[in-house]
């Protein structure tokens, strides 16, 4: 693994400021960060908390592959790709990307590409626990895909309850 790419699967809370500081060098004029956090609602239902499950060995390897791919395509310095698993409360950070670069455009572009790749490839799954007392449900695919489809994969929901 390239020494400038920090990849971690963690269960403890993610410290975004510490990771941003960890990737920045004095030669970098920009540090772009993206933090994904637990939202208090999903498709009109109030969310109480989420459980994140992972295929941990593959997830770490996949983070490293994503980091290496990005480093080859973007003129950036160090980066950090960190995902948390376990039970997360509303407002807690589930995923953090931090990218340092000499200039802002590359830092921002690489940061945006990183979170898209993580959502597309990382073997992690979230289960939503609702504040309305309903049964918990697995989320399938990126939020954007579910929202675009207008429904949370009804067949899978039937499987869950079947």
């Amino acid at each position, binding site marked *: 693994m390239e020494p400038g790419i920090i990849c971690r699967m963690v269960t403890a809370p993610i410290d975004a400021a510490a990771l941003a500081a960890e990737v920045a060098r004095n030669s970098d004029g920009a540090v772009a960060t993206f933090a994904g956090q637990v939202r208090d609602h999903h498709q009109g239902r109030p969310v109480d908390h989420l459980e994140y499950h992972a295929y941990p060995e593959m997830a770490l390897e996949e983070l490293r592959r994503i980091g290496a791919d990005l480093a080859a395509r973007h003129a950036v310095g160090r980066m950090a790709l960190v995902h948390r698993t376990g039970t997360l409360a509303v407002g807690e950070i589930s995923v953090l990307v931090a990218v340092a670069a000499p200039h802002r455009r590359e830092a921002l572009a690489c940061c945006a590409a990183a979170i898209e790749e993580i959502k597309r490839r990382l*073997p992690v799954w979230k289960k939503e626990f609702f504040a309305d007392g309903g049964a918990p449900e697995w989320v399938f695919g990126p939020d954007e895909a579910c929202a675009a489809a207008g429904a949370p*994969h009804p067949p899978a929901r039937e499987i869950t309850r079947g």
Partner: protein
Amino acid sequence: MKVKVRYFALVAEITGCSQETLELPAGATAGGALAAAAARHGRLAAPGFTPLLAVNRRHAPQEQPLSEGDEVAIFPPVSGG
């Protein structure tokens, strides 16, 4: 040949276990491992549900050939982030 099959998230709930060893014919593919798992756990083959596959900790297409001792993973579409 024997392969180790691991299940995650909803797939693990369906199978009721996190891993098992499956005996597959020589020349079997990742899709063949999925079919063998679905033969044991019928709800894996429910219409409209398409599990994803990984072989030795890399995403893999159904047609990827397997070797003795491979680690095959079967899981739902990912939803991290």
